[in-house]
């Protein structure tokens, strides 16, 4: 069966958290309810960003193009084990992703971000001077 979505309608989670319900209207205007088991919804959530990037590359003809979320807010916290840092990056429209990393990787990432941010800041400064 092929379902061509025309419009996403409603969504929800069953009381036991086992199923994600996605309702959509197909191109005939028929409302279809998809009941995705938790595992399948998780697989879809993990697959979609990659598919979006593939689509962006096809649409732009640029193999280096990618789908980029605009950072809205972020949060850094330490996990209960005191050795893992959790970085959560969010967009203003609700997407968020959390990544856990050991402290030493966190330091490396911090160093790289700082370096690149300063490089950009210098470049911007030079542009205006």
């Amino acid at each position, binding site marked *: *069966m092929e*379902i061509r*979505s025309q419009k*996403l*309608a*409603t*969504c*929800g*989670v069953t009381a036991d*958290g*086992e*199923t*994600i319900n996605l309702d959509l209207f197909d191109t005939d205007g028929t409302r*279809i309810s*998809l009941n995705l*088991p*938790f*595992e*399948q*919804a998780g697989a*879809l*959530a*993990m*697959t*979609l960003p*990659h*598919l*979006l990037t*593939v*689509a962006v590359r*096809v*649409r732009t003809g640029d193999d280096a193009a*990618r*789908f980029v*979320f*605009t*950072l809205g*807010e*972020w*949060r*850094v916290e330490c996990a209960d084990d005191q050795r893992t*840092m959790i970085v959560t990056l969010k*967009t203003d*429209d*609700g997407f*968020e*992703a*959390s990544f856990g*990393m050991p402290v030493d990787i*966190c*330091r490396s*990432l*911090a160093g*790289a*971000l*700082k370096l690149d941010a300063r*490089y*950009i*800041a210098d470049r911007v400064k030079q*542009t205006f001077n």
Partner: protein
Amino acid sequence: MRIDKSSALIGRVAASGDTLQADFTGASGNPVSVLLPFDQAKELTTFLPKLLTDALRLRTQNDEARFVFALDKWKIEITSDSRLTVTMTSPDGFEVSFGMAHQECLALARALRTEAEWPSDRAEASIKRTRLPQIGDSARGVPVPECFDSPK
């Protein structure tokens, strides 16, 4: 329409790049393909993690439960408009890219550094803004058209 729990999901992109396709197996064994225009796929990508977090909290009966991917690789790129793109990848292939201004990047670097230096002394997370995610408010089966408004 019930989707089978254990079958493999196959994702595809149309040759035009305008439509994304997710191939599932229905609970009765029949193939089910869902075709989403690019913009709808974008909306679903934005919204689905919230639903999953909500589901996870219901499954675990833990209101603080959430998905945390292990960081396998990261990449920082400088774009032509003097912004930075940070891409994070998990070992199981989940990859997401965030674009940010250099000021945000610098602030994030500082927070990471601070937390990494004194993780055991930090009782609370470093929060750039006080607004925390309101996960689950819209995930109870009620109509939530705002969830599917086009991302800005």
